Each structure stands twice: as C-alpha cells, then as structure tokens.
C-alpha cells in the first residue's frame, strides 16, 4: 500500500457506511416491488378467469336467464349514475368547505371542532354510513330507496376525504404568494381566485377523481339505500333510470351473482370484477393524466 492514491482510502467506517447505504436501497426497492406483485397477480388471475366471458356484448347486454347469462349493462349504468351524482354533490361542498377551512378559518374552538368532525367522519366504516343514509335520506327525508338516496349516502362517505385532499392541495401553495397579494390590497377572495385556486386545481381534481373508485367500489352504503337485485333494462339504454328509482350497481351485482345465485358460469363474476376494476383503473389513470398535464403548466 505504498504506491497508488492515498488520499481517499476506504476506512472501515466508510466501508460500513457504504454497505448500509446499498442495503437500505435494496430493502426499499424490494418493498416497493412487493407492493406491485399482488396487484399484478390479482389482475392476471382475474383476467385469465374472466377471458371467456369478456366481450363488448357483455358490457352492453342486460343479464338474462336469472343473471346466469347475458351482460351487465344495467349494473354498469347504475354505477355510473351513482358515482356521477354523488360526486356532483360531494365535490362542490367538499372543495368550498376546504377553502373555508384552509383560507379563512382561524384557530378557534369552533374550527377545531369542524376539523375533528372531518377527521372522524373519514374514519367511519361504510356500513355505518349505510345505516345513516337509510335513516336520514331514505326514511327521515322521505326520499325512499332510490338512486338519489344512495348517491347522497356515497357523497357523505366521500366528503371528508375530498375535504382533506383539497386542504392538502391548497396548503401546498406557498404562503408568500398570499402575502404578496394581501400586500397590494387584495381581499382573501381575490387572492384565492387569482393565485391559490389556479395553482392547486390539479391536486384538488386528483383528490376528487380518486374518490370515484371508492364510490364505485363500495357495496354497503348502497345496499340499504338504493341498489337493486335486478332490473330489466334495454341493451345500451343510457337513460334507463330515473333519479327516484332504484338501480343495479356493479359492486352489488358482483356480490349477488357470486353468492346468491346458483349455477352462474364461473367466468361471469370474474368478468364483472374485471369490468369494475378496469373502470376504476381507467378513472385513476385519468387522474394521473390530469395531474401530469396540470403540473406541466405549473408556474413556479
């Protein structure tokens, strides 16, 4: 060791540090990979089992022969109705409430109470939301079991999460922007409209869109409030349901044909699951695309 470079010799301490570094990297990588594996397995398994039944006709046809054949159109349509209406209710309320909480609210007992309510509401199990929806919308408000009652129940369920994600998006806008606006005599609302919302809209939209998958996937909240075992609907009819009628839904349909109806061909429940999953993944992909697009236009 007399010749050669002598300035950067690896001491035992440095060697240990280097090994710990690479070990840490591999552990983190393995964990990330472990998360992807189940997803791929589930998808592969489902698609393989569902393959014989999957077709465009499966999407567009109503079920026939006691749901043992045909397609899933009424359930798919019902899920779309439920998700769209519930978000149409929850998104505006949630976003406006979050703007209040993040931009206007001062730190006092009243606003702390609201915060606490939001957090706790987010932790309530969906079956409890179902019972609440049954009591509040179906019975007390007299709406009856219907798409409207089920959508409102889903809206109550998604609301706290929309509030939380919107607040996070708003909080990511630097405070210095707001102060710069206040300094030139802008009101809070002028500040919010000109600077805060345009720079947090991508995060807000992403949070809202991600709630689509939750609203589409839950069975419990709609089971008591508006989902139906079976309803005859024409192939591809987009306007088959009225607001105050009950509807079929994918999650409920899957539950029914998987457990309640004997003699369903094996591929049919799997195909239903693939459609549900595919729809959710499609929506999530849209959310990612929106976020990427908006971020590319981000201005600081």
């Amino acid at each position, binding site marked *: 060791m007399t010749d050669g470079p002598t300035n950067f010799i690896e001491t035992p301490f440095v060697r240990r540090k280097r090994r710990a570094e690479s070990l840490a990297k591999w552990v983190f990588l393995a964990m990330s990979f472990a998360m992807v594996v189940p997803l791929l397995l589930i998808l592969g398994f489902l698609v393989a089992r569902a393959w014989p039944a999957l077709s465009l006709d499966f999407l567009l046809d109503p079920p026939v022969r006691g749901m043992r054949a045909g397609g899933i159109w009424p359930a798919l349509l019902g899920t779309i109705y439920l998700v769209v209406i519930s978000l149409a209710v929850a998104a505006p309320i949630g976003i406006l409430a979050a703007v209040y909480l993040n931009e206007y609210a*001062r*730190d006092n007992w009243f606003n702390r109470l609201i915060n606490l309510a939001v957090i706790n509401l987010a932790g309530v199990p969906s079956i409890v939301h179902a019972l609440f929806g049954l009591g509040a919308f179906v019975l007390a408000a007299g709406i009856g079991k219907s798409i409207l009652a089920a959508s409102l129940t889903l809206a109550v369920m998604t609301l706290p999460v929309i509030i939380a994600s919107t607040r996070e998006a708003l909080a990511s806008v630097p405070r*210095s*922007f707001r*102060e*710069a*606006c*206040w*300094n*030139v*005599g*802008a*009101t809070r609302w*002028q500040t919010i409209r*000109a*600077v805060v919302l*345009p*720079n947090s809209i991508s995060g807000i939209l992403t949070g809202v869109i991600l709630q689509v998958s939750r609203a589409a996937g839950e069975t419990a909240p709609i089971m008591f409030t508006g989902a139906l075992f079976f309803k005859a609907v024409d192939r591809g009819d987009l306007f088959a349901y009225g607001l105050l009628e009950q509807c079929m839904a994918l999650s409920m349909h899957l539950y029914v044909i998987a457990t309640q109806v004997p003699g369903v061909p094996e591929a049919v429940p799997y195909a239903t699951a693939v459609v549900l999953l595919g729809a959710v993944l499609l929506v999530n992909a849209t959310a990612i695309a929106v976020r990427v697009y908006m971020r590319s236009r*981000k*201005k*600081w």
Partner: protein
Amino acid sequence: MVSPKPTIQVQDLRLAYGTKEVIHGISFDIRRHEIFGIIGPAQSGKTSLLRCLNRTIDFTPGVRLEGAIRVDGEDVRQIRDVFGLRRKIGMVAPLPVGLPLSIYDNVAFAPRCAGVKARSELDGLVEHCLRQAALWDEVKDRLHTLGTKLSGGQQQRLTIARALSHQPEILCLDEFSIAIDPVTTMRIEGVLKELQSSMTIILVTNLVQQARRLARRTMFLWNGRIVQLDASDVIFSEDPGNRQTYEYVHGIFG
C-alpha cells in the same frame, strides 16, 4: 422653519406574538417624502413593524398590539377600508415573490383588485410602473411570459413595479437587496432616489452602507427598542453620540 406634518406617526407601539413581546414601546415620526432608514440586526422587530403599518399583521394569529400608528393622521387600527390602507403603502419583501402569473398580470393584479378594468388604462399603468422600476426595457417584448421565469434581480424589480402599481404614497422596502447582485442593487437605489420626490420611502436594511447612501434619517432598532434615531450624517459619523450605534455601524458590535 415649520417641519411638515408627519406622514407616519408611531406612538408607544408595543407588539407581542402570544406572550412574547417583540416591540417594546417605540415612538417616532416619518416625514413626508423622506427616505427613512431602519437598520438593526435580525430579530429586532423591523419586519414586524412594517407589517403593523399595513395591517398584514392581522393575518398572524395571537398578536397583541398596543399604542398607535397613524398614517396621514389616521390610526391604522380604526381604518375600515384596510384594503385602501394597503394600497396606500407599497411593500417589497426581502425575497422576490413573483406571483405565478405573467409579467403583465403581476403588475396589473393590484389595479384589477381595485376595480380597474379598462385595457388601455391597465396598459398605461403597467408600462409606467415597469419603467419606474427600471425593468421596462428588459421585458417590454415578453410581457405575457411568466414573471417567475425572470432572474432574481429582475424579479425583485418586478415586485417593486407591483408595489408601485397601486400608486402608493409610501413605499416600504424590507431588505430588498438580500437576494440580488450589487449592480442591480445600485440600479434600484437609483430608482429610489428618483421616487423620493413623489413618495415617502421606508428602507429597512441590513446593509449599513445602503442606509448611509440613501436615507436622510436613520433609526437603529435593536431587540424591539430604538437605540438611536437621528440624521444619517450623525448616525454614520465617527461620533454618533451612542456607543452601541457606533459599534454596530462600524462592524464591531457585540
């Protein structure tokens, strides 16, 4: 000679964040159309003082304010149109904050908030303010590109243009040169000397020499108290009559 009516009068101002008092009862006047220097180390209450002036201190929770600040004779805490007060006072922050808007919209933001809608009026204002801030020639061909893409020195001049856009009578600069190079600093100092004829300027600075170059009178603030307030000629002389001032100004403080 009768001294002109002060633009700003501060009387026994005390300011506390929660239980921690940061300004311990200070009184001073700022005269019309003077450049008033405020020097002092960090944590001496300079920025808090400015925030009391335009009442953006209201946005900080748990603040207790005593005493009085009068702008043109009116106690700022009694003013109902606080947005009018803020338009009367231009504020430039230490680090340039280019709003994520175009250069044009950065400058037009304040007039728009005040209700100016006519395109021609806005165009004129934007050009006037950018010229005042010595930025016009550099950006006149790209007014509709993002303000945040400018260099640091340009962004600071943009914030000065924005602070001028609501046609203030008082301009506060809070350590404006902290993030910019000396050449740009000298340009802005030149701008300030020109603006002096039309407005009162409060110059908070860490750079002792800057206050000496620009300010007619200088206040040395330390730990929320006024150590000395006098003509800059006195403060920066070899014998300011106060040992702390002498040591701070000559860099042997502490």
